[in-house]
């Protein structure tokens, strides 16, 4: 028999304290201005 197990649902996994988001690789910096 296959048993269905309940899995805890989280909207978002919380980051540990002190976590710093990695920098986005792209796009790069705007050198002049964006139109």
């Amino acid at each position, binding site marked *: 028999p296959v048993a269905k197990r309940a899995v805890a649902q989280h909207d978002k996994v919380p980051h540990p304290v002190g976590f710093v988001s990695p920098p986005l690789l792209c*796009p*790069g910096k*705007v*050198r*002049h201005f*964006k*139109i």
Partner: protein
Amino acid sequence: VPAPPLAPLGCDDPESEAAAEVAVSYINSHSHHGYKFALNRIENIRVLPQGPNNDIIFLELDLLETKCHVLSPTPLENCTVRSFAEHAVEGDCDIKLQKLDGKITVLASKCHSHADSNEDVAQLCPDCPLLASLNNTEVTTAVTAALGDHNSKTADAYLKLLEIGRAQIQYHPAHVVYVEFAVAATNCSAEEAKVHVEACQLLPDDQSNFGFCTATVVKRPSEDLQVNCQLYGHQVPTPDTPFFFRVFQSTSTS
């Protein structure tokens, strides 16, 4: 054993910037019309390893129009990017490059350019003149008047129009037409052209002088015309680049 995947390249990494510099230089040197473009932002980069020291690089670039015509000998780094108030023009480019033993070359490129919207410009700068169509009657009339005025006053070669680069029309507080256009010298002096203008021919490529003119034509409240033409000078052709896009050897101003 397959090679481990490479760490993704960031758009602001020195390697990405080196590839973008090669790409922008290629785009400007192969452009046939209008102005040189400068790098504004690296939008995306993807690297496909082909073998040892051999990568294919796909670049997406956002460029901005400068004030230097493609015929101008001014190095791109000295070319000013058009300001927002001058009605900026953006270029979107996809470029395929190869990096082989550290040397980057362009394999293919595709670019589209578009001007900022009139609404955007008007919103932030209500009185700024907006870009006009190059075949607008007011524009072509202004270019004809400006070139005629220059030719009537110069003692140098009679200049003919190559192309109109850009034009802006302002209606308030005065009615003003701003035009920029590329020119080429003919085998006639301006004085000779007054007698036999139909005989004046563009000089052969290896002797030709190219230049660039800016003009302001005020139509209201009172009529006025100011024109300034700069000749870039004599070019020495080389076999591997189109003549129009070679670096000129000297400059002179009239």
